[in-house]
């Protein structure tokens, strides 16, 4: 089995840097634009995310998931950190543009990654309002409080929807769900 691009980066293969940007640049750019307040913020964040990727490549464990998920995790961490440090303004995607968000079709998401397929399947099993909460929180970067305000539902309901959605995906990703039932 050939090494992944992250494993190549970790081993000092300089050509892998270009491959990584080519292969995962669109993913990082997509997430950064959604979870940033301005286009300039998105550009700064993308630079920081790639620096994080170079620094973290050696920690990538292929047995724990794909390159794509690892990189999306790094991107999310950085972007959440940036959102917390900046003002209370929401990210640049207005909620009115929600129609523009297209979830991957569970039947074709496997072309993106196994994990995306699992997530799409889990999302398809959720109620529309639960899916909307996940969409606002994870794809548009709204905080739980902001979601509660926008949808005019109690904060506790937002937390509950978020929890169920994430745990459903977690279960479908073949992660041990022991101990969760009491919390859901």
């Amino acid at each position: 089995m050939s090494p992944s691009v992250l494993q190549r980066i970790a081993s000092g293969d300089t050509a892998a840097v270009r491959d990584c940007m080519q292969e995962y640049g669109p993913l990082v750019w997509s997430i950064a634009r959604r979870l940033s307040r301005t286009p300039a913020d998105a550009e700064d964040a993308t630079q920081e995310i790639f620096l994080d990727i170079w620094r973290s490549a050696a920690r990538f464990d292929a047995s724990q998931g794909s390159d794509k998920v690892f990189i999306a995790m790094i991107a999310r961490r950085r972007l959440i950190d940036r959102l917390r440090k900046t003002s209370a303004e929401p990210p640049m995607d207005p909620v009115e543009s929600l129609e523009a968000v297209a979830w991957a079709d569970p039947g074709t998401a496997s072309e993106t990654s196994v994990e995306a397929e699992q997530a799409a399947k889990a999302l398809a099993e959720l109620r529309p309002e639960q899916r909307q909460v996940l969409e606002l929180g994870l794809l548009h970067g709204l905080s739980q409080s902001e979601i509660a305000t926008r949808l005019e539902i109690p904060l506790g309901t937002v937390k509950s929807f978020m929890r169920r959605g994430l745990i459903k995906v977690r279960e479908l990703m073949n992660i041990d769900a022991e101990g969760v039932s009491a919390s859901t």
Partner: protein
Amino acid sequence: MTERPQNQLDEATLDLLIKQVTDGLAPAEQRELDVLDSGVASEWRRELERAAAAINLAGSTDASPLPAALARTIARQAEQHFASVRHATEPTAAAADRKIASLEAERAAASLQRVPPSYGNRNGIYGWLAAAACLLLAAIGWLRGPVETVPPSAQVSPAAVVAPAEKPLTPPTPAEQRDALLAKAGSIKITLGGTKDSGSAGMSGDVVWDPATQRGYMHFTGLAANDPSIHQYQIWIFDSTRDKHFPVDGGVFDVPANAVEVVIPIRATLMVRKPAAFAVTVEKPGGTVVSGREHVVALGAAG
């Protein structure tokens, strides 16, 4: 099947973990999580982060490539990062050389501090001396640092050059942009001095830098013309929050034969948080990621 109580997680902890991976936690919430954590939170956090990332993958169906300029910047930063990693793991003579430079700088700084202040506030003088010592340390360390063989820096678009005879362009010229930046509140101006290098003979110049917008210009008179096919000038910015051995690359530029005065836009490839000094070196065409420092032709320190 053996029960795995270590995987049990109470609802309050789970709520905090979910908030951590979706919103981030306030310091008080983080402290609360630290108190509640029975040792399995980090594992749960990782799994929830994976789930959130997978949802992002399922929702990121658009695939716009990185903008070209951004991709170039990231590629340059990668070069700098990996050069820095190589340097950090490099043992031996280079480290010894830097140690000597560091000791010399400390000696120089000590001699500066022995000079009795003749007037003014003592704390102010000591503050100035400390700043001067830091700069000296950085500059000596940098100038005497190791010469590395590194891949060439990605080509930055040629710097704009203003010669007196040029007709003004419709968009503001670099000189006009420099003037505008100089008038902007918060911008700083630093005088550039020559060095012992023959390339700086007769040169004078300055830097105008705006920390807020990360834009700046170098202005020179008398800087020798270069043949871009043989060598180019390269700008370096010392950021006191970064490793002094790795100043931020500010781009390469050329001085044409007929130019009396040039204004060069600075293209910092990394965020410069606390500019401590600016320098110009002569490098091979395209510049370098880590300068060999054989030819430093201009150097100026922030006040």
